[in-house]
């Protein structure tokens, strides 16, 4: 019972803070945090409800245990299973930044306790339910583990379905601004343009494309015309090649294969016509969805009258690819981890975290590329040595298809080709090559058709020097930036990836060939990406390397599994997963396809990104503390890798019979996280970032709404003032409120409008005495508000309305007549 009481008190303390309002009031220079408690009556109600809920839960479990598992009744009566709930009170410290004198220096701690509160509550609730389930003899756990009795094929299909459904639901739920949207920015229209010319049967030449406004709604598609165009193109280019070869043979030094020039992302083909620099591979993936939008669902023209205004099905194609990536990753991990359950869990985590989670509704080739990378990697790592010719041929074709998506994937395709040739045998090897080579030749034929060059990078080679495709000058720093940079790096946006290096070393101990393969694939994309840019034209962070990131969840999973018996590793893994999922959630929620770096409307303004260094630019060049921060983070990752390498070499301890949390180990992990948070942030003195903070206008609205609800607030304070009330908040443009009375039968509606100025709403309090003996109604108003009162009797009544403004009190009296009912 003591535990139940402790749980009730803990919930009450937490709810007292959580039902209050913490809000950052920022201007151009600094931020002042305000805390407004919910009021005395509300707190009393909260305490009663919290205690009642705890006692009710305790009583229900005790009753249930007495009936179904009487052996555990003594344990149930101690209430120890409610212990996790007792931790909820700690979250109250999340209001620290609002404590007078603390301010933004408390933001890092508040991030952990306040911004992440829903994660902690979910964990506490789940942990408590598991403990209660154990008291009943684990019926729920047994039901879950009954899945292991299913046939292997059924379990795989179940895993596919669970992963697919979870990821699709996650993508739809977390992207309110871009899900199924027709907004296209950056390079997205270029991929859709190919879809449109294919629909019109014009091949890939965009020069004579018709606009949607020039075509009737019921115009038939001409998709099959592309086939005849392809056939004639092959004939034309075969003859052209013969001519080119003769010309090249006669003067090899002066003959120019690539004979086109680029202008603003477009090129004029060697035979005329206009083509785009971007490869059409993604358009082929999008086309089925685009066809439906164009043929059936789109009525009005959208972007520049080129595409339909509704692109729901086109978006659905990306969403399907996102879900399929998860399924493919699950298939890879179940081979790698030998556990369907772990594979499903890590596949969902791998796909729900940054950067790939951001691409479910963006028309970029990264997701299809990720799907191909995962599928081909699975084949090469786990099936190549004993595969059929058909599978080998399909894998080879998939590997080469990467080049259709973007020339950036050329090196990965080369790595896949060499690995496939090395790891397959006899017939499968021939089949792998015969799948790979024709697809690669098809890309080269397209490039030859447009540019005259057979190089698969010919289109990008035609770019002018102002658009650098690859440069070795900033390559090393960009590579480091892809890991550590707070704005564009992988680790700050998905801290779970900090475990990749230690995990790779553990994987190397277990399966060196696999670790080397992963490293080669990672570098095969990271190097060309780093040679191009770090920011990827201001799109989603790490876009250029996103295709290979999902497979690196494997070493992370290997590391966690290898040391799962350690409480520190379990706690650390959980923390990193939460940080990564929270970053993904924050990014997706605020992503409206604007400038791509992380934005959020959080109440603290701190993110783990601020405990990472800035790589490149003025800060990198001049700040010693920033450099120290980089060295420190790199040293921690390296030290973790060395420890993992050394420990992984020892014989593995047996699985613990029952996993128990050691408070000291958990405390150690939390302490390490706190030290990193505070020291990391302190080094660059960036306690908060305006990009992560709730905007000034909504913050002031929130503050006003919370403050005016309480006449004289006893527990309202800010980081600069010990006690404030609603008259403290500025600006408050309320000067001359308008009052409006509306009588409807026996109901009277009193409406007060406190006005607004420059988008800021006036606010104040209002007391209304309705003159019928009932108690006056007192309420706060932000902007405008109304009170409805019902008169029981007809008659004449004098309504007294008192408006409390910041520096004034206005009293108005109105006499009304309530007529008897007909």
């Amino acid at each position, binding site marked *: 019972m003591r535990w139940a009481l402790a749980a009730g008190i803990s919930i009450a303390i937490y709810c007292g803070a959580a039902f209050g309002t913490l809000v950052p009031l920022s201007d151009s220079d600094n931020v002042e945090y305000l805390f407004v408690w919910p009021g005395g009556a509300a707190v009393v109600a909260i305490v009663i409800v919290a205690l009642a809920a705890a006692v009710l839960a305790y009583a229900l479990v005790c009753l249930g245990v007495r009936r179904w598992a009487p052996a555990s009744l003594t344990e149930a009566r101690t209430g120890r299973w409610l212990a996790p709930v007792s931790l909820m009170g700690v979250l109250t410290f999340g209001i620290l930044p609002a404590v007078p004198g603390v301010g933004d220096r408390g933001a890092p701690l508040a991030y952990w306790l306040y911004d992440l509160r829903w994660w902690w509550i979910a964990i506490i609730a789940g942990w408590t339910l598991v403990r209660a389930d154990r008291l009943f003899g684990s019926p729920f756990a047994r039901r879950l583990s009954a899945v292991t009795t*299913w*046939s292997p094929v*059924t379990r795989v299909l179940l895993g596919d379905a669970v992963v697919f459904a979870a990821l699709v639901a996650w993508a739809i739920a977390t992207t309110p601004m871009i899900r199924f949207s027709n907004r296209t920015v950056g390079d997205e229209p270029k991929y859709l343009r190919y879809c449109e010319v294919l629909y019109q049967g014009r091949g890939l030449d965009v020069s004579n494309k018709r606009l949607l406004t020039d075509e*009737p*709604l*019921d115009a038939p598609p001409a998709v099959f015309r592309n086939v005849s165009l392809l056939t004639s193109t092959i004939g034309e280019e075969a003859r052209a090649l013969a001519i080119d070869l003769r010309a090249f043979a006669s003067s090899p030094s002066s003959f120019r294969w690539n004979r086109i020039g680029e202008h603003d992302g477009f090129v004029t083909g060697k035979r005329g016509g206009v083509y785009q620099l971007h490869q059409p591979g993604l358009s082929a993936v999008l086309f089925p969805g685009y066809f439906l939008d164009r*043929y*059936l*669902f789109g*009525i009005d023209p959208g972007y520049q009258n080129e595409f339909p205004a509704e692109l729901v099905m086109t978006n659905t194609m990306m969403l399907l690819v996102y879900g399929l990536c998860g399924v493919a990753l699950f298939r890879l991990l179940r081979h790698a981890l030998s556990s369907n359950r772990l594979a499903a869990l890590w596949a969902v985590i791998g796909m729900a975290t940054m950067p790939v989670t951001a691409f479910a509704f963006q028309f970029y080739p990264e997701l299809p590329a990720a799907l191909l990378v995962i599928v081909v990697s699975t084949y090469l790592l786990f099936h190549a040595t004993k595969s059929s010719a058909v599978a080998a041929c399909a894998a080879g074709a998939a590997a080469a298809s990467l080049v259709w998506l973007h020339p950036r994937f050329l090196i990965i395709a080369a790595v896949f080709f060499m690995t496939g040739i090395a790891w397959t045998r006899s017939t499968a090897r021939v089949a792998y090559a015969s799948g790979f080579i024709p697809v690669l030749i098809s890309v080269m034929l397209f490039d030859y058709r447009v540019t005259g060059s057979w190089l698969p990078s010919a289109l990008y080679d035609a770019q002018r020097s102002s658009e650098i495709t690859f440069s070795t000058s900033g390559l090393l720093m960009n590579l480091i930036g892809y890991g550590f940079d707070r704005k564009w790096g992988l680790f700050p946006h998905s801290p779970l990836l900090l475990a990749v290096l230690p995990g790779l070393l553990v994987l190397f101990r277990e399966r060196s060939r696999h670790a080397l393969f992963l490293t080669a694939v990672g570098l095969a994309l990271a190097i060309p990406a780093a040679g191009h840019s770090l920011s990827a034209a201001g799109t989603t962070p790490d876009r250029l390397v996103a295709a290979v990131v999902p497979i690196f969840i494997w070493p992370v999973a290997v590391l966690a599994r290898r040391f799962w018996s350690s409480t520190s590793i379990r706690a650390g893994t959980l923390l990193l997963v939460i940080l990564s999922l929270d970053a993904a959630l924050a990014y997706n929620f605020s992503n409206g396809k604007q400038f791509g770096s992380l934005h959020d409307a959080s109440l603290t303004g701190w993110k783990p990104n601020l405990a990472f260094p800035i790589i490149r630019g003025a800060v990198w060049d001049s700040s010693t503390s920033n450099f120290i921060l980089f060295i420190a983070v790199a040293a921690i990752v390296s030290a973790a890798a060395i420890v993992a390498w050394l420990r992984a070499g020892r014989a593995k301890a047996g699985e613990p019979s029952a996993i128990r949390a050691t408070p000291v180990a958990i405390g150690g992990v939390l302490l390490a996280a706190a030290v990193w948070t505070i020291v990391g942030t302190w080094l660059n003195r960036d306690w908060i970032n305006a990009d992560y903070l709730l905007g000034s206008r909504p913050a002031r609205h929130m503050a006003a709404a919370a403050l005016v609800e309480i006449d004289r607030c006893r527990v309202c304070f800010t980081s600069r003032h010990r006690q404030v009330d609603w008259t403290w908040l500025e600006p408050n443009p309320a000067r001359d409120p308008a009052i409006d009375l509306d009588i409807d039968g026996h109901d009277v509606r009193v409406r007060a409008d406190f006005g607004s100025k420059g988008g800021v709403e006036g606010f104040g309090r209002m007391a209304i005495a309705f003159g019928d003996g009932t108690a006056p109604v007192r309420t706060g108003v932000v902007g405008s508000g109304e009170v409805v009162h019902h008169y029981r009797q007809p008659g004449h009544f004098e309504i007294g309305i008192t408006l409390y403004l910041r520096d004034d009190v206005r009293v108005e009296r109105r006499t009304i007549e309530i007529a008897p009912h007909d």
Partner: protein
Amino acid sequence: MTSERRWALAVRVLALLSAVLVAIAGLEARTIRRLRSDVQQLRDERDQQASGVISAWTREPAEELGEAVRSLDRVFAEPGAGVGRPGGLCPDSHLDDQAIVRYIGGEFLPARAAGRTLTQAIERMNAAVKQKK
């Protein structure tokens, strides 16, 4: 029924359901295409109607149009029954183009296109101005 038979049955039911859904989707697609044709036809008719109206406007003699504009100016300037605005259609020496668009384009020309006489069309326009006063 064994677990495997249950799964086999479920798969068959799903396959049948999928086939039915595909057939329904095909029929729906045909219907949508027909509706698109209808929408296109309506759009064509709307465009024809609009161009017909405008072509009727272009047939309006310049003298009559000028008379309508002068009448409008008088109504705007006329105190009492009119708007009583000093300057008429040109208050403060600036042409009130919106008034011309609203009353000439919105009242006078459609009335003429509908076959009303010049006098009737001008009266209708003036009545509209006075009503809005």
